[in-house]
């Protein structure tokens, strides 16, 4: 705990330093970055130490605000969430130092103030044990990230994204506020002294809305595809990788606090998760903007996490330790994995944007040959996102599928049906996700450059490459180390699954070991086949020739199969879920001028649910504004009427 406090202190000091040195941008930025990296390193130490089994004493200091107290605790759950927060944020800071380094203006410098505050507040959210402290950290986190999102507010789209984000997060916070105040009935608002003043059903519902909005559950996800692309890439990485996970954390914490949750919670979570997963994956397929696609894939992955939690609750309700433990463990592991590969992918996308100046897939291509490190790292991340063995994403999804399959194969229908839903959803999500990342990676990094900008792309500097490589290594490592990680996860899982997780997870660990064997065989075969081919080709001629141009007289790079065309078959199948706007300028006339075709996929929920709702409210309010019509006589009449009514109401009553 002292180490953690020190880390927070360092972060805040970095923020203060940045503010103090804002006048000298270069140094201000350095202080901010330094504070972020040092603080994250310290915090990582503190968190890992707890996960390795040395408990940290909780802290409870008086705080002179109503109901407030500096109540901090670092239990395994908090520590587990701290690990990705600090790890990814630190790397993102290093990356951002170069990413923003080009522009030495004051705003870029001040952004480091917000970055440090954001990291500190995320950590505070996770360790806070007092409602007021939690709310303050929660809101500060939202505000800091808002200011980071709107860093480039000359751009009208960025402004709109910022507005959407601020409004969405504030709406969520309203629910959170009510939830926490209801949670802490009685005198204190400390989490260890909760006395719920309402039924668990209501509390869970409030939590689902409030924290689901932060986590990006469909249909509360609309802010996510707006805000994450708008932010600078290292910020997008932090927001998408870890910040939305604080929503998951808070949901978990709530579930542990409200007491026995109603039976429908588990199945509901499974359905919500499945919905978010599938829809997120489909929406991701429809995007042309790389970062927007990644944002939607975050929606998808949060869906997987929530689905896992739902499985855990279902198992808990059905008294099936295996399912309960596997669901929660898989969810948690996926939180970690997603933090790593999504962070990695956003950083990679950032490198691409940095090098080419565009986020539009249709203007990229062939980047692998120009930025091999970025390409290779991104490929690892993409494969992990696609849940391909032997990477991390695969391990966590396999655990979930395993739990679900066991439940489906052995449990009573009440538990088996949700499990089957989860299983089917996982299969669809997996295939969709694989198609999505294959599309994105292939179109962006493979083939030939579609524009000169993409052709002149260059590898970024070390400060941007190093985080990519480290994250890629972590993605692979998590996959290979999964069996042992599972054991380390047991203490985190135990309180959530409501049982001793270690034995419940043992068979899964065995399975993972068997899987590791298979993976070893696979790698051996790959190596063997590669060796064999090398041997065979050693004595043959190996020529390099242009690819056959499909019979075109003069094939251009734009004729390659692009992102839109790649996704077309799937989008046609899922068109009912989507809104795809086509902009077609067909060639016409005897001498057709330039023709063009483009698609964009605005968020259907925003289009069909939220915008109309907001418009409706605005109209309704506007209709009431005649009350302020400007005629003083009637204003006085209001007074008279009020008086008469009140008189009649009090004096008139016998």
């Amino acid at each position, binding site marked *: 705990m002292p180490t953690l406090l020190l880390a927070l202190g360092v972060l805040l000091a970095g923020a203060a330093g940045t503010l103090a040195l804002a006048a000298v941008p270069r140094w201000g930025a350095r202080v901010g970055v330094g504070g972020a990296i040092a603080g994250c390193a310290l915090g990582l130490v503190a968190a890992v130490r707890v996960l390795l089994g040395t408990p940290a004493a909780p802290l409870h200091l008086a*705080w*002179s*605000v*109503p*109901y*407030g107290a500096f109540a901090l605790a670092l239990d395994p759950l908090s520590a587990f969430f701290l690990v990705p927060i600090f790890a990814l944020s630190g790397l993102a800071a290093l990356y951002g130092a170069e990413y923003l380094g080009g522009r030495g203006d004051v705003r870029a410098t001040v952004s480091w103030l917000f970055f440090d505050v954001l990291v500190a507040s995320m950590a505070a959210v996770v360790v806070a044990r007092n409602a*007021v402290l939690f*709310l*303050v950290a929660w*809101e*500060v986190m939202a*505000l800091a990230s808002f200011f980071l999102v*709107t860093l480039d*507010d*000359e751009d*009208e789209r960025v*402004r709109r994204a*910022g*507005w959407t984000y*601020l*409004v969405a997060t*504030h*709406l969520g916070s*309203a629910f959170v*506020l*009510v939830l926490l*105040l*209801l949670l802490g*009935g009685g005198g204190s*608002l400390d989490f260890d002294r909760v006395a719920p*003043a309402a039924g668990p059903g209501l509390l869970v519902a409030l939590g689902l809305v409030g924290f689901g909005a932060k986590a990006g559950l469909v249909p509360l996800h609309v802010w996510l595809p707006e805000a994450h692309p708008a932010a600078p890439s290292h910020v997008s990485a932090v927001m998408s990788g870890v910040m939305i996970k604080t929503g998951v954390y808070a949901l978990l914490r709530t579930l542990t606090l409200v007491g026995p949750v109603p039976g429908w919670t588990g199945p509901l979570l499974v359905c919500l998760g499945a919905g978010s997963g599938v829809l997120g994956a489909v929406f991701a397929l429809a995007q042309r903007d790389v970062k927007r696609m990644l944002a939607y894939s975050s929606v998808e992955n949060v869906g997987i996490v929530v689905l896992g939690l739902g499985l855990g609750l279902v198992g808990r309700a059905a008294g099936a330790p295996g399912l309960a433990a596997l669901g929660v463990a898989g969810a948690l592991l996926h939180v970690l994995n997603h933090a790593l590969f999504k962070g990695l992918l956003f950083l990679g996308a950032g490198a691409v944007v940095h090098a080419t100046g565009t986020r539009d897939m249709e203007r990229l291509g062939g980047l692998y040959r120009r930025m091999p490190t970025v390409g290779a790292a991104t490929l690892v991340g993409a494969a992990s996102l696609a849940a391909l063995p032997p990477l991390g994403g695969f391990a966590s999804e396999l655990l979930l599928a395993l739990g679900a399959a066991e439940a489906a194969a052995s449990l009573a229908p009440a538990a088996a049906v949700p499990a089957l839903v989860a299983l089917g959803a996982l299969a669809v999500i997996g295939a969709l996700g694989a198609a999505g990342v294959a599309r994105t990676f292939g179109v962006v990094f493979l083939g030939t450059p579609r524009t000169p900008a993409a052709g002149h792309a260059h590898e970024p500097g070390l400060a941007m490459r190093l985080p990519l490589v480290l994250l890629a290594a972590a993605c692979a490592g998590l996959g290979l180390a999964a069996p042992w990680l599972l054991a380390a996860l047991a203490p985190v899982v135990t309180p959530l699954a409501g049982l001793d997780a270690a034995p419940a997870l043992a068979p899964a660990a065995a399975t993972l070991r068997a899987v590791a064997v298979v993976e070893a065989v696979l790698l051996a075969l790959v190596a063997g086949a590669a060796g064999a081919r090398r041997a065979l080709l050693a004595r043959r001629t190996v020529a390099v020739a242009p690819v056959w141009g499909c019979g075109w007289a003069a094939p251009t790079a734009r004729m390659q199969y692009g992102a839109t065309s790649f996704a077309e078959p799937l989008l046609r199948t899922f068109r009912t879920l989507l809104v795809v706007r086509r902009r077609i300028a067909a060639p016409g006339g005897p001498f057709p001028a330039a023709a063009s075709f483009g698609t964009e996929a605005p968020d259907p929920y925003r289009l069909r649910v939220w915008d109309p709702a907001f418009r409706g*409210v*605005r109209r309704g*309010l*506007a209709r*009431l*504004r005649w*009350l*302020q019509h400007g005629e*003083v006589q009637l*204003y*006085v009449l*209001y*007074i008279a009427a*009020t*008086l008469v009514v*009140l*008189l009649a109401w*009090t*004096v008139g009553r016998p």
Partner: protein
Amino acid sequence: MIAALLLPVVAAGVLAFFVRADALRRVLLVGAAGAHAAATAATWLAEPAPVWGGWLALDALGRLFLSITSALFLAAAAYAVGYLRREGEGARRDFEEGLLFDNAPEAAFTGCLLLFVAAMTLVTLAQRFGLLWVALEATTLASAPLIYFHRHHRSLEATWKYLLICSVGIALALLGNFFLGVAATTGRTTLPLLVPDLRAAGPMLHVPWLKTAFLLFLVGYGTKVGLAPLHTWLPDAHSEAPSVVSALLSGALLNCALLGVLRAEQVCAAAGLAPFGRELLVGFGLLSMAAAAVFIPGQTDYKRMLAYSSVEHMGIVAFGLGLGGVAATGALLHAVNHSLGKAMMFLVAGNILARYRSKATGDVRGLLRVLPASGVLWVAGFLAITGSPPFGPFLSELTILRAALDQGRIALAVGFVASLVVVFVGMATSVLGMAQGSAEGARGGREPWLGIAPAAALGAVVLGLGVWVPSTLWTALEAAARLVG
């Protein structure tokens, strides 16, 4: 000691009408403000003795509102010096319609400003209902010329509405005085209408008359507080008055008027009618918040937006006081937070107005680039006033909401939160639209420190109250809340 509070301001006010030199008059203004602040600070150290047979005394409630007024007056005075320097004599062009107009003579402005503050001070001191009424009516009359500082037709219209509506309301309060007198009459003898005496004699008061009296006070003074639907004058006056005046109106005057209602509630509580008054306060509070939620979204004039937000926050305060208990303490804390925050925003609005020459939200763009300091303060003020951590209003609103939920009044809590959210969205749209964006059109430039420092100081206090509520303040608020009963 009480004399020390009143006399300097009054004297300076009278004097200001006759002083020729602008510089000297401005010194006089700031000096009076300083003296007032010093005297107010002294009252925290030593309880001032009641004077004039207990007509003037400073209880916890009065001291709270006095302190708010004094602090705001100090900030406003400092700001006014820079403001008056910017303004100045002669005809100028009205940037909304291009008409020529000139300002009221500065002497009259300064004098009325000082007398206005004096009247408000008197309100916080008055223990006698009649005197309270006289003082409150005096605030109306002293502030009317301030609103008509810019002599064009819009400010004139605003002034007229302010005068007429508030006078009518105040007249009702006068009737309330008489009803109270009747309620306090037994046989041929009537109790002196002093708050302490009436509280002491609470149970003997004549209930139906007392109830009616309270209604009249509520509607009468409530008109001046700006409780919906009696708030109609407020947006006009606040938007047309010079920003420094708007700051005082919104931050100090509304609270003083509220004090009038609270005095009545004190008596009701003593007579065992506390629930009656409280329910009414809760109702008006929620109604005011709803009204703000109606008018703030899509508001095209940022000073009107601030004015409606004042309606909302007086509603919040009334709501909390109505709930009673911890909520009342929270409400008083909220009164402090709101006054400081809103005053700060009005001062900043003055800077914006001076640079962009427009009150239309749509005309202001790229504030953060054109006026960095004002822009930051503007955004910070918006966050503070809409109850976002780490600013004070968040804590006070949280306290109030908590109490509502503890009392199991879920419907009220939902309404409370809902209107807060709507107001937030509405203000966010306007404020962000102004703060963000590129700065084409308006050119940047250095900002006068006299325009920034007072607002920044107020903002710093609001921020401070958001991370640390001094225990002395809290106990003082609790004492005041206990007085309300």
